């Protein structure tokens, strides 16, 4: 009898990229639901728009690059990028802002660098930073909690850029909590004065603290499932806590407390879902820790002293750049190699 020949091993754990990506997307769902509970339909509409753009541009790029279309579209990676991007962008964003950010993420940051697995920079963060630099005025419009729009309003705003005469944009939008601390401090207010505003919740930004908690839940599930490793989120969060803690203890009226740092802005989302993007992160055990600590520290520095409202995107991209060097110097000791 003759048989087909392939090479061992013949067993596999049946994990594959599209399943991995899909599980990460599942883990985002609780956070997305809580998000839309506090801020209305806009986020869902944004996510759908980003996903459609991502899939269309991914398909186009695959065609142009003559790659098997169905095979790569099934990997779900474009959809994940789109979800993360939509979650990072302001809730009230015009459609073209979302489309431009997504196009940059998929076309430039991903495919022009060689497609899945070859991109040195996190695509979602590239998209975010591009619009952040190009259209800064749109990046500060955030909804107030429970001032959310219903579906028709959300669509109307998204595509027409205006609302019913009954609602004025100013009455429902505001800066983010992190941003308002920054502006407040520059006006010589103390932290306790600033955080008396209704923008602040129990331990983080109002509404945002619960969204972050839901993302935390999803992130822990990913660790439990073995989809992501604990090193990156834990070291990232720890480094923020330590840095924020030192400054907070030194001067509680000038610096917000560590808990606030963790639960406002995109800290949790970034720690569990963005910094853990395997392609652009460090891969060695020690390297992962250095990479994550770097992101945490840079985030805190940019947030506290930098000119942008939230520094996570920049921190991630800066550390992406350092990855090859980190990987090179943190190779693990080979079994039986001398000198532990």
């Amino acid at each position, binding site marked *: 009898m003759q048989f*087909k020949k392939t*090479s061992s*091993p*013949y067993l596999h754990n049946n994990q594959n990229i599209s399943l991995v990506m899909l599980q990460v997307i599942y883990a985002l769902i609780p956070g997305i639901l809580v998000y839309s509970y506090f801020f209305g339909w806009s986020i869902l509409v944004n996510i759908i728009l980003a996903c459609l753009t991502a899939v269309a541009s991914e398909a186009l790029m695959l065609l142009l690059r003559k790659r098997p279309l169905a095979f790569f579209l099934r990997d779900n990676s474009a959809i994940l990028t789109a979800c993360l991007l939509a979650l990072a962008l302001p809730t009230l964003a015009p459609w073209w802002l979302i489309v431009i950010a997504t196009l940059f993420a998929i076309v430039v940051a991903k495919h022009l660098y060689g497609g*899945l697995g070859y991109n040195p920079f996190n695509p979602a963060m590239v998209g975010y930073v591009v619009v952040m630099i190009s259209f800064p005025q749109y990046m500060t419009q955030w909804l107030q909690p429970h001032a959310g729009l219903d579906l028709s309003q959300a669509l109307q705003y998204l595509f027409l850029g205006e609302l019913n005469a009954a609602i004025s944009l100013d009455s429902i939008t505001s800066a983010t909590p992190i941003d308002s601390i920054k502006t407040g401090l520059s006006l010589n207010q103390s932290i306790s004065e600033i955080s008396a505003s209704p923008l602040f919740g129990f331990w983080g930004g109002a509404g945002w603290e619960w969204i972050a908690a839901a993302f935390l839940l999803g992130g822990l599930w990913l660790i439990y499932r073995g989809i992501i490793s604990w090193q990156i989120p834990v070291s990232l969060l720890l480094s923020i806590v330590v840095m924020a803690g030192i400054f907070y203890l030194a001067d509680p009226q000038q610096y917000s407390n560590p808990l606030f740092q963790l639960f406002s802005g995109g800290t949790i989302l970034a720690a569990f879902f963005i910094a853990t993007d395997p392609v652009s992160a460090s891969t060695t055990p020690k390297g992962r820790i250095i990479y994550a600590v770097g992101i945490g520290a840079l985030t805190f520095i940019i947030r506290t002293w930098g000119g942008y409202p939230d520094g996570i995107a920049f921190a991630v991209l800066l550390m992406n750049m350092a990855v090859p060097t980190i990987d090179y110097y943190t190779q693990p000791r080979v079994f039986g190699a001398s000198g532990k």
Partner: protein
Amino acid sequence: MQSKHKLFNFHGGLHLPGHKEISTGQAIGDVFIPSRLVLPLQQHIGESSEATVKEGDPVLKGQIIAKANGYVSVPLHAPTSGTVSQIIEQPVPHPSGLSATCIVIKPDGKDEWIDLDSSADYRQMDPSALRNRIRDAGIVGLGGAGFPSFIKLNPGAKTAIDELIINAAECEPYITCDDMLMRERAEDVINGIRIMKHALQARRCLIGIEDNKPEAHAALKDACSKLGIDDIEIISIPTLYPAGGEKQLIKVLTGKESPSHGLPLDVGVVCQNVATAAAIYQAVTYNKPLISRIVTLTGEGIKQPGNHEVLIGTPVDEWITYCGGYHDSIKRLVMGGPMMGFNLGTDKIPIIKTSNCVLAFGEGEADAQEQQAMPCIRCGACMDVCPAQLLPQQLYWQAYARDFDKIQDYNLFDCIECGCCSYVCPSQIPLVQYYRFAKTEIWALERDKKKSDRARLRHEFRLERLEKEKKEREERMRKKKAALKTGKDEKTKDSKKDAIEAALERVREKQKKSQTQTKNIDNLSAEQQKKIDDIDARRNQEQKDSTS
């Protein structure tokens, strides 16, 4: 005693579904004698054996049919009585499906033994006599690698052996031949271990057995107490693939790490497999050579899976037919386990000394490699499970880029090809295939380099010799001329002498001519020389090929 032993961890590893119950249902099946036995001359690592019989010779069971050829080699014995029908090239179990010289025996059905020497007591034999007996019995490592066992029992006078470690882990899924051996022949195993311990003068002896084999563990324990042995520790280790990897097992049991690029011997450890131990007992005590082994036949493509005692040389197809044949669902045939074994393109190949398992996968069973690979997403899953603590995705990139220098910086040769990395890779990249490819390429390059080095050396020697000869010739000429000159000066004085001188001169002239002729052959044009060298090289290569 065994419960107190401190265990260590190795990095990574996998919890794999065992699938062992498929083949542990019934007792080890009896030997059957197939219609022909095909015995490759090379069944071990090292030099292949040299046939001592010719076509048409009658042979008896246990008779040597091929002798050891060099130190790293062992003899080969006839597994049953019959006639040598052919000595020819046949397909042998090998990943690349190659053919090699085999002695084919047609059994006569009488199964008649040669006269075996009377049995011996190992305690009366010194280690070197023991080793000779083990070599003469043709015993090689039965765990898979097939290294001649007597060499491992010869650590050299200077090396003290702290631990003799017996590998009873059998960590790869599906395979159960060692498990069944221990259950049914535990005393052989224990006795074999005592012989090895004696030969090595090892300080202590540890048996490492995965905790998924409680029956085998109990059987070993019973055998020890029955034989009144208390200096062998039987240690249950967690079931974690590849705990049966030699270096991994040593780490788990002793905490010692055999050096990268080194041997267990470097840390005072010798590791042997349980089946080898049992074979050594038979060889030393009853002088029985290695002519059969226990092989697992399993997988969903097999009608009646189980373990059998199989004569070395039994063709796989005949054996499987004897055992009830294939299921219709049979899709793929593997020799060895599902993680480290290799595909057989055909079942018309023999069982050899290192064959521990024949695995017939059915439809849908273990078709990991059918998936199309995605690009590497650098997830690091491969690194997390690598027991050699390598960076598999880096190895993959270098192999992909064919950068064979860089890949060795990433310690390619520490890779034990366990397959853990491929198993977890979400991109379904056949990583191990890349490593095997890289290793083969590097070996080939090194062979080529050695060859060209040798050719270069030969060339240089030749130039040197020519240079020397030329100098000598010139020297001779100079002397001759000087002599001639003095002769000419005296010419006028003595015409008789002159005549003699003239005759001599003619002779010299002749000599010189013949010398110039040799010179002609010596001073070949570069092109001619290359041709000759090429022919030489080819001839050498052919000689080597026919011996290997």
